């Protein structure tokens, strides 16, 4: 029965009461807008949509991610509530008032017998659209003078939505996270006893619950690894009651899953194949295993120079890169606040000429300032190894930041520097302030 399924998904008695009181008298006017929030995969849209479907209430479910413009949102809403003809009445690039006008027009022909519901998923994206959209939708009932309720679903609390100008306060409903016990009781496997399955989920939660509460993801992992869990049973090596043996079998496997398939280092298909092949020793190459990037010779030096410029204070350049620099007193060399690790502070922006100055002093040979050296900088930006600070179209003294890690730079400088002292020099420059 639908009601039972929904109550299984629901977490607290409170939300259940609220929802049923809201939805169970469709002939009467509903509260104009309801705001439901809760973390990812806490059953928000599932519960609402199942309820609306099962109770056969007229509704429109729209995901705001899909609506690249407000027009699309209006169109889909009208399409779902009144059919294709009504959506065609909207002008090009409709505004909220156009929507209200069209709504009133078609609503006059088909007056509401039951409350119409408009469900907006990922409602946080409404904030980035036109400023009048969110307040308008919140009091849509008033605007169109129809028995309509707007249900907003979001992962963000209402406080972050409230516009500066104020608005109609919706009814707030919270879907809390599933507790461990709740998750245990949610699913079952048809071919095995519920006790066995819940003991499996218990083991799974032991490994994953600390990092992941996303029900969808947990289910995914459960499905991926269940066959491995059942393996001793199928082979007849263990009985259902022998939980310890089953645990010993699956636990290391799940730990490996956390490092690989959970992080999407290895795809779920590959993970499944690996299980079938039973070759556990041959570890699959993960995505981050191939971190090595081959770069042209000067690009490597440009990147090293960018790193040095990003993490060393500009004052110290003279000391590092000029051969006959004047003496700097040791005490004044580093200011007090600079003694905190620069790597904790993150990369700092630097202008193009500083980058080039360091580049020319770091690279061994004389390099002509050719166009290709400059174009390499911009290709490093498109490869996201450098990031440009400020506008893209700023031609005058552009500023950059280095976006790669210390390990990356160390690997590059190791393969670029033929002579050892040069490498030492570079790494010294890098390490001195770490």
């Amino acid at each position, binding site marked *: 029965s639908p009601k039972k399924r929904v109550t299984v998904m629901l977490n607290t008695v409170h939300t259940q009461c609220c929802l049923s009181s809201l939805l169970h008298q469709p002939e009467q006017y509903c509260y104009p807008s309801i705001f439901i929030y809760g973390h990812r995969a806490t059953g928000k849209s599932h519960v609402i949509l199942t309820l609306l479907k099962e109770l056969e209430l007229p509704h429109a479910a729209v995901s705001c*991610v899909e609506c*690249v413009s407000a027009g699309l949102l209006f169109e889909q809403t009208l399409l779902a509530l009144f059919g294709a003809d009504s959506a065609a009445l909207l002008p090009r690039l409709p505004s909220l008032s156009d929507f209200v006008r069209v709504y009133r027009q078609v609503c006059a022909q088909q007056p509401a017998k039951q409350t119409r519901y408009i469900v907006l998923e990922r409602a946080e994206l409404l904030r980035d659209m036109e400023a009048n959209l969110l307040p308008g939708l919140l009091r849509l009932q008033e605007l169109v003078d129809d028995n309509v309720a707007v249900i907003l679903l979001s992962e963000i609390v209402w406080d972050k939505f409230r516009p500066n100008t104020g608005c109609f306060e919706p009814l707030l409903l919270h879907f809390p996270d599933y507790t461990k016990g709740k998750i245990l009781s949610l699913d079952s496997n048809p071919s095995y006893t519920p006790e066995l399955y819940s003991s499996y989920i218990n083991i799974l939660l032991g490994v994953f619950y600390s990092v992941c509460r996303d029900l969808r993801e947990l289910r995914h992992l459960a499905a991926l690894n269940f066959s491995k869990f059942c393996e001793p049973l199928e082979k007849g090596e263990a009985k259902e009651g022998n939980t310890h043996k089953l645990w010993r079998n699956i636990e290391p496997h799940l730990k490996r899953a956390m490092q690989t398939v959970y992080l999407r280092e290895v795809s779920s298909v*590959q993970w499944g194949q690996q299980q079938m092949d039973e070759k556990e020793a041959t570890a699959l190459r993960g995505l981050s295993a191939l971190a090595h*990037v*081959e770069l*042209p010779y000067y690009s490597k030096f440009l990147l090293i120079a960018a790193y040095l410029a990003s993490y060393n204070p500009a004052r110290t350049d003279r000391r590092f890169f000029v051969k006959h620099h004047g003496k700097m007193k040791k005490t004044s060399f580093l200011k007090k606040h600079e003694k905190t690790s620069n790597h904790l502070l993150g990369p700092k922006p630097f202008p193009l000429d500083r980058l080039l100055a360091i580049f020319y002093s770091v690279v061994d040979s004389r390099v002509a*300032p050719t166009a290709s050296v400059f174009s390499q900088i911009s290709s490093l930006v498109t490869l996201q190894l450098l990031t440009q600070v400020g506008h893209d179209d700023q031609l005058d003294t552009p500023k950059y930041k280095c976006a790669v890690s210390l390990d990356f730079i160390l690997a590059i400088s190791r393969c670029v520097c033929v002579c050892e002292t040069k490498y030492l020099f570079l790494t010294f420059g890098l390490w001195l302030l770490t």
Partner: protein
Amino acid sequence: MNESSGCFVFKPSSKKRKRTVGIDEYFVDGNDDCGNGRERFNICQKLWEKIKMDTEILQDELNEKILESLLDFIKKCTLSFQSRTDDWASRMRASEIPTAALVLGVNVPDHDMTFQSLSDLLKNSVTPFSVSVQAKECTALKNLMQRVLERLMGVGVSVEEDEEDSGIHLPQKRVSCSISVLCQWYKTVTKVGRRTLKLSHCKNGFLQSPPIVVIFKDFEAFNPRVLQDFILICNRYIHELPLIFVFGIATSPSTVQHILPHSVSSLLCIELFQSLSCTQHLATVIDKLILTSQFPFKLTGKVLQVLVSIFLYHDFSVRNFVKGLQLALLEHFHSQPLSVLCCKKQEARHNAQKLSHKDVEMVRQLPSFMRYVETQEPQEQVQLLTSDDHVKEVCQMLLKGLRKYHKNYYPILRCLHSLTASLPKYPLGKQIRELHISCLEKNVWETNEYESAMQLLRLLAKDELVAALRKCADILKPGKTKKMKSALQQLEDYIIRFEQLDETLSGEEITSPGKDLQKKTDLFQLQKTLLEMKGSRRTKKMSPFEILRNETLDFIDGLVRSHLTPPELQPLNEVCYYSSSGVLRRHLNATPRTSIQTALSHPFYFLQNENLKTDAGTVSSAAPDICIVYKLHLECGRLINLYDWLEAYATVVSAAEGKDPDAEDYGKVDELKHARFIQSVSELEFLGFVKSTKQKTDHVARLTWGGC
């Protein structure tokens, strides 16, 4: 009347106005003194076509493996879409979009060809629905959706046009660019396809519901927000639309995790595909295009060095390398009138016969030909210098010699490389191109590197040496010239002798001098014997293996000395070899800043005005204003006082006007000079040499280092 006639725009017929200049005209115009421009152009064009085709074939061969595995992946995913069952596991599992992460390396310009062949392959064998998108056309989610829909549904419409009107329309309004529109479209298309295209489907080998493949060409350049939203949307429709993504990644696969948060990347089922590295790619291209006697056109060492260093130092792009080769080809045929002889055997003979008197004179002036003449008998010399017909005859003979030289050069080069490539520290270079360049530039056997390589070779153990020699024999096998055949014969003889050595050696006993050593206990005696042994080791009788090894290596040394001579010594090498590396470098690796500075400090080079010619470091006062201003600004420090600058400028310009230095208004600033000065300063600012500063009033800041 006037008003009404003004409303009609008179369009001149464009045909009359346009003077179409054929490309071959440029070859004639460029060197007006000789009549073979058109022929040279034709030869050049033919050669280029051949090179282009060869590179394309090469590219396809190199990509074959990765593309095939990618296709397999896509087919596998399509099958899993169709066989999707409603069992427990698939209901529990999150629906993921199959994604191929295609790691292609940082040589972004080369990727186009790979993607082109990928989408061709897809269209031919898997699905008609594949789109590729680039980051620059998808700055917002709206644009991305629009591109995907347009390209997909546009293709669909054009495919179905032959059949009856299937009622598919492109979205009229931009607004309705949503995936649900695509869903409906896909359903209609596949339904129609199933009904009407049943036969053709089987023919094409398309699966029943072909997947929709979206290729993101440059993954890194995409706005992360746009990508995330797109993936989120697509994931909502994965049950209705069999979507497959291909990410073209230039750096490393971990960028996927940098760009997409876990909540989004968990919607993807990513599999990794890695292409060949670009250095390997270049090595194959050089192997097939440069190290072959197939093409008559050659590059000298310096030119090849320029092309290779642009590749290694700057872009890693094979496509740009081939483009550079094309430029060299064009330059060669354009600038060298005698390149008319740089073609295939028959054609070259024909063209040699047709050489005009002027051409023959040009041949006589070639340095390599002059050297050749000097080595001839006096009577022959007179003949060569007086009779045109004789020169033509000799030319044919020399061209034949040049072809033979190439036919021998490349196999021997490969042999030498295969022998030395496995030596420790690679004395002659790891890549064959390094060896090739050093052979092109000088007598390779005179270098220290060659000597040390030979010494190392003389230390090789038997099985290593024999294996290397076998490889050499394999290289020499396809050789058709007499010399190569005899070299192969000799080499095989040596290999046989090495093998026979085994049988004879096993009977012999090696007497080591160490045995006597144990008997002597006297210190003096011991010392004496040790000294003797040391002496004897130098002149020690070599084992038969060592003798044979030395003999073999002497033979190889002889081959190198006779065939790997630099091409400069070959007569008529100028016909085939393109040597102006400077031109190539200037075109391919431009230095805009340097040329601006040259233009400003030496206006003579660009304006070709004799009056502007001056000694180094000075500028004529008659030079353009901006040059004078530039010259003056070089003498200043970081901050330049505008008024001082103006006065200095006025003085210089007054001198140019030829005014009397003692006159009262000499060097005085009038309005005209003031305006000219301001204009030149703003031009300098535009070029990026100075900029206004707020540090000091009436000052500008210099932006370049260094003075006069």
